[in-house]
């Protein structure tokens, strides 16, 4: 781990120039991309996530770290080899039908991405059939739904129903969140998890997929 100490610190600090330079330096020195990703970048983001959940970091600081990590991952991209595990899992995410709010959904997306997940973002006002169609297409591990309004919450069970009809419900885990959503509601509509905020959403996503 110590060989990527400077890289990790740069990610934690959100210093993109140093982080990119360190990533290149590590590649030049012969480290493989998977190692740099796991021991430099993801290690750093785990620490960032940990500090954030303890209230030691603010949201923009955490997002800056996520952005730095993504930049570094782009640099690593051409060097990944077959068999490398570059993603913790794929999350299909969207704001449900009838709802056009996306700040919360975008925040969750960025934090999941920062934690190493691959995100397929369907945007806002996503019809249940669209969720189902895209689930069949991109084969995500998790389908994540957001709603800000009480009146649009019913689109969540409708989406789950659409996934059932398409016989895709059992192939994915379902996560929901948003201001009016509760743990109880998640149970009622038989979602697999409820994230009360973006940080919790990341932890729930990890535990749904059995990642510590």
């Amino acid at each position, binding site marked *: 781990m110590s060989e990527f100490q400077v890289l990790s610190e740069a990610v934690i600090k959100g210093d993109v120039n140093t982080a990119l330079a360190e990533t290149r330096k590590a590649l030049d020195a012969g480290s493989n991309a998977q190692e740099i990703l796991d021991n430099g970048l993801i290690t750093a983001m785990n620490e960032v996530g940990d500090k954030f959940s303890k209230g030691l970091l603010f949201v*923009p600081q955490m997002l800056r770290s996520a952005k730095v990590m993504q930049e570094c991952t782009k640099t690593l991209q051409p060097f990944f080899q077959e068999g490398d595990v570059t993603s913790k899992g794929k999350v299909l995410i969207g704001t449900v039908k009838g709802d056009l709010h996306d700040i919360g959904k975008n*925040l969750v997306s960025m934090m999941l991405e920062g934690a190493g997940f691959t995100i397929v973002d369907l945007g806002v006002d996503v019809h249940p059939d669209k969720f189902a169609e895209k689930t069949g297409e991109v084969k995500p591990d998790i389908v994540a739904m957001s709603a800000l309004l*009480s*009146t649009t919450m019913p689109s969540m069970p409708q989406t789950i129903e659409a996934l059932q009809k398409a016989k895709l419900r059992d192939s994915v885990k379902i996560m929901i969140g948003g201001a*009016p959503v*509760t743990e109880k509601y998640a149970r009622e509509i038989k979602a697999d998890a409820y994230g009360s905020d973006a940080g919790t959403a990341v932890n729930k996503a990890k535990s749904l997929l059995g990642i510590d």
Partner: protein
Amino acid sequence: MKQMEVPTFKPRLKVLNREQALAIHGAALEILQKTGFKMEHGGALEMLADAGCRVSDKDRVSMPAKLVEEALTSAPKQFALYDQKGNEVIMLADGNYYYGTGSDATFTIDLDTGERRRAVLKDVGNFARLVDGLENINFAMSMSNPEDVPVADIYLHAFAEMVKNTSKPILFIADSGRDIAKIYQIACLVAGGEKELQQKPFILNYSEAISPLRFPENVMEKLIFCAQKKIPICLPSGSNAGGGAPVTLGGAMALGIAENLVGLVVHQLAGKGSPFLFGPNVSTLDMKSSVVSYGCPEWSLTQAALADMRDELYGLPIWAYAGATDAKVMDAQAGAEAMFSIITAMLSRANIIHDVGFLEYGNTSSLEMVTMANELIAMSRFFTEGITVNEDTLALEVTERVAGGGPGSIFLMDDHTFEHFMQAQFLPKLIDRSRYDTWEGAGATDLYQRCNAEARRMLSEHQVEPKSSEVLEGIARILTPH
């Protein structure tokens, strides 16, 4: 001493000078011209294009400053809200201020158990009834999205429940053009007809655009409906600093005002001269929890700034918030945050001040919190009235009488005290100033407990003037699904 008549100065808060106000307004106009906005309602888009806006990429609109100026000229500078009996109780003009509750909370604190639970329709009724009985709360909002009615009609049911439980003006939420039409039907029943409602509106709609710069179809439906029916409306957006808008308050205000101006322009195009309440919601997105804060100093500061912009530029009555908190229970934080926003909103003369009684950044409503706020508003009002200085209040003769009088002369015994103390002093009802032993003997209660008891008393004793059976039957018909 011969006393000249001295006008009473009423303390007032100013946070922006004219140059700052003009600069923020200029930035808002620049946003509308250069960045433009997304208008998703076909009819509104057409009206804007016809009026001289440039439309590109289907629904991207750029608005010239001239349209804004025209709308600011045609919108009424003052308008009144009436109670449900037809009395003018809210005159939205100049620096008149009015407080009321908020809407859309998911949870409420149960009055009996103290537990946070999902809100139900009965809670909407309880809040409206409490508002009806509290002298310093001037209008009712639902305070809850009830769990026990069909979700497509929650706003309709909430409105009907409020009508049954208060005679005060109602600020209401609707989902779209569909339910607002039914809510309007109920309002017409109460007012005695469409014309009567238009002459003496007791309702005001609250709708929201989406920051940054997005105007959804259902929101515009409500705006146009209100403009055409002359129902007062306000259309803030969630331009909270760091969330829907730039993190810096100047930029967040400029964006929020730009969004409001779009609403105003569409509104005036759809119904020239219809009443519009101006004002964005510029709070902050908390940088740790990412909640939109209901207790932060920033929101109070931006609405004080908006009051200055009203005075310098717009002349339209404004929308504001106060009496809420981010605390999860009604604790010291709740008291501090509630008082901070209540007194600053009053000192800056915001006009319609809503959200009184919210805990947990607007996610939970509390009857005790509304009850406490009622008293905090009274305290603030006393302060804001200033000090009357005249012969009677200077009371030189009284001082002469007591100080120069015989032994045993005390002010407390003087007739002047007896005649003036009720006006000269703020007389608290729930704030406790009793001596320690008295307080202990009376159960050693804290303010939360006293507010709980007072809310219970009010709900069991306060009589709301019942609606006629004709109105109630009409409501039942409107609520019956077809």
